[in-house]
């Protein structure tokens, strides 16, 4: 790749070209190959093998005939002859076989809960949805919530209590730990330490307090590698005491984010995403939107939705924050304007000042306390308190104290260490030798040869920490246990189990109850006991069942506090950051590593890079030129004499001089999926914790970057399934973008306008701009050789006509829809090697397009499911009628008819069809994982094509309900409308920002549906409309709202 050539090409072109990958921009041979061949690699193995003799041909022919014969023989027995029906002995109340039931619970993460509704089919939880009544979910989910259902069935979860690696029992552990605690009653629990994840569970906190009363000298420590240390310290610096801040983005017209990825890593991110995007939906009757300024030290999904994004070194953000505070008029900040940032700072400050009480400054956890305090000062000065910013008492009280614990371990003050849930042997900072001390403690023997200390670990996996402890206790999954948890605002939820513990695990609450000397009490009794004590005068049973049903306990949100004016912290002196800075971030797929063993998440193409099964050191193109490296080159990052080797991945949008790495990879004991074997064909990354220190958790300067001779094979999906292979191959080259000299015939195919973008000003000035962007082709009538309804063709004016509308402005590229679709539709995982052959199976993909310059790109997310074309090119070419059209406008895929010619996929201009080259669905899928499968969706075998069905199982279920209702009462049109409007596809339901709407595009019960209204919006456009495919999935164009003082309005948006 020659980046300078790319730069000149980009600067020479008029208008805005969009590209998905650097390979595409450079038009590399690999990219060219992937464009020209639908399935590069693998299929043409014989041709490339060199042995093209007649003999070899006959051998292959014979083998394939034999296999075909075997296939036919086995195909005859598709009807299982000997199947049993096993009814209940005494059926549970309310359960109707064949009908799913939903239960409200909450998923704990980082100590906070987010409400979920879990779909249970005949006792098996199979799907997670957001709980619309829960303040932290509002009905949305993220990829972690969606994928946690697979974590429940993970066969690698530990399945027994072990002692020194040998299988033991719970009873044996109780007999060890209880006498030990009893013997310490005299000394008040001297030498006993608990190490926990921070938690907001009221029951667990009450149990811990009781334990503390029983053993006054027992100490609790907490550890969370992501944590909220800086946020808390910033609050203390500003207000002298820790409070929890919560934001109301629905009231904010201007938002400034200082390194805050608030759409992803806050405990209320789903709520913030919804509120923020609700303020950006421009419709015919609402032509205003909020404005987002982001200054960030790496590339985040929040940054990608910004109207003005400033990619700067993370150490410079403090300087920027000071200048912004000064520009806003915060007194006591003496600073000079950082060079080159004046425009951004002045514009942001002016915008903030113009929206007093309706603006917001958010600071990310990665920034030091000083920046947080400045954020509070600006918010206070601009009168945002009580409008966009609210404070409560802290919801999560504990702070990290791993360093204190390790000091005590080293000095031998501790002889009993019980670890709950957290995995510090892997996640602890590199300068805190937790693992070594834990190992020493576990191995130490007293004079009589017995173990001197007791170390035990309660966790879902037999992980790095479990390995170093004497005892490992298997924990129950949150879907298997009773419990409670609070949300970001204090709202408590009851966790109710969906299934009995698969392997007999126990929850933290149950283990604590044993430590309290009450082994006979179940978690259920403990939980109810706690809430009985809370609701003293209430009608307990009624309140209890209400709490279970709604998923939230009413009235438990913490009261809002009125705070005075914050202190402005004197600016700390900056130490030089050196040439390179490294940024650590939780990973978009595995967070801090706790989701490493989840194959759905590992296979999920990460935002921007579309990297799978690995992490990488993301660097900007300019950095790559300076370091003289290309994708996959391994560099050594040296920081404070510690070093890691990381493959680089050139990603436009990362600030120059920054090496951005994500945490959670390179695990040694994660399970079969997440453990690193040193095999490039499997992947799973490098361990960035190895150079992360307690003092510099989020970014560190002075890192040395040394290019090594090694390379690592990174597998990205960003150049897969490119749209535009079938007409003009030149079309994707940026220099082929239409200019005034381009002849009209070429103009149509030259720029396909896959993503249409305009600014709010442009749109207001001309509401037709989106249609006009389509150019000549938009004006032409769509032609078809096929007959219309008047000649016996399809009549789309009756019944339900399904369609989808995807709002590109609202999409934040978070991947929740991709995992939701995978869970709902039994989509298999294929692994890194198969993905390198373009064989990923996701039915919906998110294409991330870059536009503008290489150094300051704009980023657009475009989810692409099946378009369900009214004139579907795939249907005409199927030789066996396996893909056909329905009267409701669905493009149907019938697996049992498919013989695997793949003509349909070749002919699909959107590249949304997926082929089962191998038996992905059954290969190495263990029995436990099969329990997750949706019984309403066929599991596909090898040799079969598949694709998005608009969740036909959900359509059929709702339609059957509607039809039954109409038979009973044909006048129930309003009820019918409500029922159909409640129908949601899996992707739509998962979306935290409601970017996806689905429904009937013609009126139902005489009333116009949501999706039909959206399709009437001026922003609506169809992808590749000029091909006359008449897609049922259409898009609402991406609108941005730039500040005219930074970006003067100019024409020619792409």
């Amino acid at each position, binding site marked *: 790749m020659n980046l300078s050539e790319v730069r000149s090409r980009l600067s020479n072109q008029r208008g805005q070209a969009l590209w998905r990958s650097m390979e595409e921009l450079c038009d590399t041979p690999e990219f060219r190959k992937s464009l020209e061949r639908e399935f590069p690699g693998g299929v043409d193995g014989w041709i490339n093998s060199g042995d093209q003799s007649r003999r070899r041909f006959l051998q292959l022919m014979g083998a394939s005939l034999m296999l075909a014969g075997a296939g036919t023989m086995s195909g005859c027995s598709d009807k*299982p002859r000997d199947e049993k029906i096993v009814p209940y002995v005494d059926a549970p109340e309310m359960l109707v076989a064949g009908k799913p039931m939903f239960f409200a619970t909450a998923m704990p993460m980082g100590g906070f809960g987010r409400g979920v509704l879990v779909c249970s089919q005949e006792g098996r939880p199979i799907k997670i949805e957001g709980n619309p009544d829960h303040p932290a979910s509002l009905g949305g989910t993220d990829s972690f919530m969606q994928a946690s259902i697979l974590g429940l069935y993970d066969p690698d979860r530990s399945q027994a209590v072990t002692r020194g690696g040998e299988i033991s029992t719970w009873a044996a552990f109780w007999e060890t730990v209880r006498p030990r605690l009893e013997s310490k009653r005299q000394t008040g629990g001297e030498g006993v330490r608990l190490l926990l994840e921070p938690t907001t569970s009221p029951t667990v906190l009450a149990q811990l307090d009781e334990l503390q009363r029983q053993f006054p000298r027992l100490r609790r420590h907490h550890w969370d590698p992501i944590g909220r240390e800086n946020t808390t310290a910033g609050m203390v610096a500003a207000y002298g005491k820790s409070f929890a801040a919560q934001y109301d983005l629905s009231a904010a017209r201007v938002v400034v984010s200082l390194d805050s990825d608030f759409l992803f890593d806050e405990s209320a991110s789903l709520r913030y995403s919804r509120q923020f995007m609700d303020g950006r939906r421009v419709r015919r009757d609402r032509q205003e939107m909020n404005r987002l300024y982001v200054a960030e030290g790496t590339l985040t999904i929040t940054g990608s939705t910004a109207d003005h994004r400033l990619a700067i070194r993370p150490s410079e953000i403090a300087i920027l924050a000071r200048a912004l505070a000064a520009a806003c008029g915060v007194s006591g900040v003496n600073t000079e304007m950082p060079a080159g940032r004046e425009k951004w700072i002045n514009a942001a400050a002016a915008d903030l000042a113009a929206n007093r009480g309706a603006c917001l400054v958010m600071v990310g956890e990665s920034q030091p306390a000083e920046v947080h305090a400045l954020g509070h000062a600006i918010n206070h000065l601009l009168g945002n308190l009580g409008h966009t910013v609210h404070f409560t008492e802290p919801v999560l009280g504990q702070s990290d104290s791993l360093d204190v614990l390790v000091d005590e371990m080293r000095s031998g003050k501790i002889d009993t260490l019980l670890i709950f849930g957290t995995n510090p042997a892997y996640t602890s900072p590199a300068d805190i030798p937790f693992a070594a001390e834990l190992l020493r403690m576990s191995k130490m023997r007293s004079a009589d040869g017995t173990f001197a200390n007791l170390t035990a670990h309660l966790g879902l996996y037999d992980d790095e920490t479990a390995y170093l402890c004497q005892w490992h206790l298997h924990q129950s999954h949150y879907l298997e246990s009773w419990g409670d948890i609070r949300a970001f605002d204090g709202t408590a939820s009851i966790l109710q189990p969906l299934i009995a513990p698969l392997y007999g695990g126990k929850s933290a609450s149950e283990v604590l109850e044993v430590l309290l000397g009450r082994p006979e009490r179940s978690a259920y009794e403990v939980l109810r006991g706690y809430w009985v004590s809370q609701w003293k005068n209430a009608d307990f049973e009624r309140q209890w069942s209400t709490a279970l049903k709604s998923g939230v306990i009413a009235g438990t949100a913490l009261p809002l506090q009125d705070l005075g004016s914050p202190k402005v912290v004197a600016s700390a002196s900056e130490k030089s950051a050196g040439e390179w800075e490294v940024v650590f971030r939780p990973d978009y797929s595995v967070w801090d590593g706790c989701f490493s063993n989840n194959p759905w998440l590992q296979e999920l193409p990460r935002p921007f890079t579309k990297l799978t099964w690995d992490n990488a050191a993301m660097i900007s193109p300019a950095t790559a030129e300076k370091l003289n490296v290309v994708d996959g080159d391994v560099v050594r990052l040296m920081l404070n004499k510690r070093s890691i080797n990381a493959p680089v991945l050139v990603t436009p949008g990362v600030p120059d001089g920054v090496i951005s790495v994500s945490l959670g990879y390179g695990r040694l004991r994660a399970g079969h999926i997440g453990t690193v074997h040193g095999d490039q064909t499997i992947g799973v990354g490098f361990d960035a914790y190895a150079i992360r220190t307690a003092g510099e958790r989020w970014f560190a300067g002075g890192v040395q970057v040394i290019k090594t001779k090694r390379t690592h094979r990174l597998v990205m999906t960003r150049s897969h399934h490119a749209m535009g292979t079938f007409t003009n191959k030149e079309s994707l080259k940026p220099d082929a973008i239409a200019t005034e000299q381009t002849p009209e015939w070429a103009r149509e195919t030259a720029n396909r306008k896959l993503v249409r973008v305009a600014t709010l000003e442009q749109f207001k000035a001309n509401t037709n701009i989106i249609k006009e962007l389509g150019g000549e082709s938009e004006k032409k009538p769509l032609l078809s050789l096929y007959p219309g309804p008047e000649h016996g063709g399809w009549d789309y004016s009756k019944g339900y006509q399904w369609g989808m509308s995807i709002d590109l402005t609202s999409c934040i590229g978070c991947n929740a829809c991709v995992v939701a679709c995978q869970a709902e539709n039994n989509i298999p995982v294929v692994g890194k090697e198969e993905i390198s052959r373009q064989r990923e199976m996701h039915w919906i993909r998110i294409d991330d397009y870059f536009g503008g310059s290489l150094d300051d790109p704009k980023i657009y997310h475009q989810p692409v499911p099946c378009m369900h074309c009214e004139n579907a090119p795939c249907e005409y070419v199927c030789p066996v009628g396996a893909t056909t059209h329905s009267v409701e406008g669905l493009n149907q895929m019938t697996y049992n008819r498919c013989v695997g010619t793949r003509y349909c996929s070749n002919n699909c201009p959107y590249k949304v069809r997926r082929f089962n080259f191998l038996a992905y669905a059954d290969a190495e899928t263990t029995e436990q994982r099969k329990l997750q499968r949706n019984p309403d969706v066929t599991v596909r075998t090898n040799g079969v094509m598949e694709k998005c069905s608009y969740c036909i*199982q959900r359509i059929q279920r709702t339609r059957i309900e509607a039809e039954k209702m109409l038979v009973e009462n044909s006048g129930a049109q309003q009820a019918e409308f409500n029922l159909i409007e409640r129908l949601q596809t899996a992707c739509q339901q998962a979306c935290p920002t409601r970017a996806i709407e689905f429904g009937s595009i013609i009126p139902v019960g005489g009333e116009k549906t949501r999706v039909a209204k959206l399709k009437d919006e001026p922003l609506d456009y169809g992808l590749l409309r000029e091909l006359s495919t008449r897609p049922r999935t259409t898009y609402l164009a991406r609108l941005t709202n730039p500040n005219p003082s930074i970006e003067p309005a100019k024409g020619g948006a792409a």
Partner: protein
Amino acid sequence: MPRLFHRRMNVIARASLLAIPILAATAGGVAWHVQTTSYVTSQDITMEQPVPFSHKHHVGELGIDCRYCHTSVTDSSFAGLPPTKTCMTCHSQIWTNAAMLQPVRDSWRTGVPLQWQRVHNLPEYVYFDHSIHVAKGVGCATCHGQVDEMPLMFQAKSLEMSWCLECHRHPEEYLRPREEVFNLHYQSPPDQLKVGRELAERYHVRSAQALTDCYTCHR
């Protein structure tokens, strides 16, 4: 040049030319026929059950309604098989010592469910829904036959796709009033086609084209 083949070979070659298509057609015909036999479709084959439950006795003679045991037939895709408790509502009072009912009593006592042999079975890629058929006036007997005359349950129809399509293409030939769905003695009127069309209209039965969409049954 000597002849490679004897003159007789001409006859054999000509006969072969004729025989190959005939043999192929015969083989095809046999294969087609085998597909429609009960060996493949399981039609008319009586299955052995843990308890020889007689629909003839319970339905035909005692007159118990279908829905007494198959409770979810109007609500769910699955008609439902009764839990042991349903059997015991009567059999804790009558025939309490019958040897035939020993497995039922064992199940009730031990809590281990009965395992019935499935009689009506569709391939995994077919998604049949009882409730919508019942709601739109398809009688139980239309698919399940004269259950009230079956001492042991067997599959009365072939359950092949072509059999399903007969009705999905011409529902008016089979529909009956909703009140008669569970009536096993219902006789279709002489003017069934006319009545059927009216019923299809009244019950909003969708067009044959819609009913034969692949996604109607396959997902």
